[in-house]
């Protein structure tokens, strides 16, 4: 009797179950990932930061290099868009312009003063400095600007460069350095870990001995030692690639160990034996059979090791051994903040730090969420 009355709820239930059983690995991971609230929030933050890095040139009103500097507003305080002031309100945001004067009254020093009576309105999609979107499409429109003069949302630094524009470009630089570093580390880890795990025996012991020895050396002092060899004359771009490469060259041991452990457990499975009996070469077995068996784990490992690359780069640039000035990165931007002058008077130098903590935290949370989602047994030990 009861079986006759088909309840719509159980029917959708049935469908959900069917979808569950026929779902691909990717769909299952995504379903588990969606359930984790903190990871989802982190994923949105990450996407927002990625997009702002990707469209950095469009979003930033001024060129982040010396070319875009505001020479009348050095070490300038952040200017927040306002809607209301003593003269009433307006729907369009505006700022009060800054005037600079030097006279007997100011003891002949340059003094900047905010003119409360004047308003400079924001304009949207104005023409500005030329840039190439994605490095391809030449454009000169920017998201916002002001009618005359300059607007600096996060203030300016000692040479008058806009900190807001620099921050956006620095996010993109960090992403690039992280990606290149992770990719190099990944390829090395695949080759070294792959050989070690696939062949086993004395080759494995030998490679593991070397890997462990490399792992005992503290990484950042080692980075510093290698980075110190880069000739000072090299251009900022060459430096950028070399630094990313060094990060990758030192970052491989942890990844290689993980790859090896996966391979060691997988290589004794029947499907590997079957492939070998069919006459497949070792390279073919590793590439076509073993690696796909733990792709999801590898992706998770890559996401997790990403923030460490970014942090190492920041640390290196901070002490002056990493990236150099025309290239913007957090470390480059923070180089001068330890001076008492900055600490006491120009605290807005620290604004980019917030973005970087957000970036790294987002990566860590997403990586953690992905790890839980990729592990089919994660539900059982919770």
């Amino acid at each position, binding site marked *: 009797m009861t079986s006759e009355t088909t309840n719509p709820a159980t029917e959708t239930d049935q469908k959900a179950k069917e979808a569950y059983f026929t779902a691909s690995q990717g769909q299952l991971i995504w379903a588990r990932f969606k359930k984790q609230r903190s990871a989802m929030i982190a994923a949105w933050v990450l996407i927002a930061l990625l997009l702002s890095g990707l469209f950095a040139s469009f979003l930033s009103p001024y060129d982040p290099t010396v070319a875009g500097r505001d020479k009348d507003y050095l070490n300038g305080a952040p200017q927040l868009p306002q809607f209301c002031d003593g003269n009433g309100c307006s729907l369009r945001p505006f700022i009060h312009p800054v005037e600079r004067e030097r006279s007997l009254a100011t003891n002949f020093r340059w003094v900047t003063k905010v003119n409360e009576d004047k308003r400079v309105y924001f304009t949207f999609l104005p023409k500005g400095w030329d840039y190439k979107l994605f490095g391809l499409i030449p454009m000169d429109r920017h998201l916002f600007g002001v009618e005359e003069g300059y607007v600096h949302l996060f203030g300016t630094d000692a040479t008058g460069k806009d900190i807001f524009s620099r921050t956006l470009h620095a996010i993109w630089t960090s992403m690039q350095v992280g990606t290149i570093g992770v990719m190099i580390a990944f390829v090395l880890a695949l080759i070294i870990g792959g050989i070690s795990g696939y062949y086993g025996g004395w080759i494995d012991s030998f490679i593991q001995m070397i890997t462990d020895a490399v792992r005992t050396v503290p990484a950042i002092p080692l980075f510093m030692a290698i980075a*110190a060899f880069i000739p000072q004359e090299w251009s900022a771009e060459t430096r950028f690639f070399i630094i990313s490469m060094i990060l990758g060259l030192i970052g491989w041991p942890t990844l290689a160990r993980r790859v090896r452990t996966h391979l060691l457990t997988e290589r004794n499975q029947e499907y590997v034996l079957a492939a070998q009996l069919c006459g497949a070469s070792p390279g073919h077995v590793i590439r076509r059979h073993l690696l796909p068996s733990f792709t999801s784990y590898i992706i998770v490992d890559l996401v997790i090791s990403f923030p460490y690359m970014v942090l190492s780069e920041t640390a290196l640039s901070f002490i002056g051994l990493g990236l150099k000035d025309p290239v913007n990165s957090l470390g480059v931007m923070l180089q001068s903040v330890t001076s008492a002058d900055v600490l*006491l008077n120009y605290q807005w130098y620290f604004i980019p730090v917030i973005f970087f903590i957000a970036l790294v935290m987002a990566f860590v949370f997403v990586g953690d969420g992905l790890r839980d989602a990729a592990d089919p047994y994660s539900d059982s030990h919770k």
Partner: protein
Amino acid sequence: MLGFMRFVATRAAMALVTLVIVSLVVFSLMELVPGDCAERYLAFKNTQGSGISVADIEAERVRLGLDRPFLERWTSWLFNAFRGDFGDSCILRLNISQLLGDKFWLSLSICLASLVLAYAIALPVGIIAAASHNAVLNNVLRFVSYLGLAMPNFLLALIIMLISTVYFGDTLTGLFSDQYRDAPWSWAKFLDMLGHAWLPVFILGWSATAFALQTVRALMSDEIGKLYVTAASARGVHGRKLLWRYPARHALGPIINSLGFDLNRIFNELPIVALILTLTEAGSLLIEALARSNDQQLAGAIIFMLTASIVTLNFATDVLLAVLDPRVRKSIIR
């Protein structure tokens, strides 16, 4: 007992092999720097006004023994390094051991103190977090841990400096007060150092604590679900006694094992934190050697000594684990 001695001997041999490999890496890095000591000595002479020729450089190389093959120079460097003699720095023209003095031991003590601090916080808090089902507590701890991982120590140091200069007007930097900086060691100097050293210890311990907290919590929550814990609680053991005597003892093994890597992580941050807080110890000397004077002999010596202390700690924890854990002990003495 014989088995135990054999175990210790093998571990010591493995530690030695690791050190030899590390020394090869460090020594090759030192060699890779363009320009050797002979060129630098003579470049200095050149600035003093006396002209030099290629033959002079060659003669200087022979005098310094730089014309010998790589392997020979490496082995002699290695043997001297084990005796604590790293030769002379050719930039500063001083013996490196003399230059480092007690600075290296100062750095090592700061790092070890932050390691102790990290576990002093992480062990109790991690165990409580694993045992409790309080979602808010667990989420807060997770967030704090991630913040510890995401915020590099040097940013923390910068932010603490920012706050202390804005609100207290003191940058809290340095390791000694002015009157003690060059004074010989005394009780008063030691107390003065303690008054300054708490900040670097706290900053270096910060992310170490975050890491340790995660490890302890994960290990404990794995162990707490196991049957022997249920059996013990069925026998009437409960509360703190249950946690400390059953799962905590099991979780201790992997924690002791990971101490070496924790120290490694702290050493990673040491030079940069030292630079920000203007500590006068080996970390800032390392930066000085690498970023400013390009003094590869000094840098190589410091990196080698840092690594050697990690290897020593790894060896010590291996032996300690064999002493503490009956399962490991039994597997050795067979």
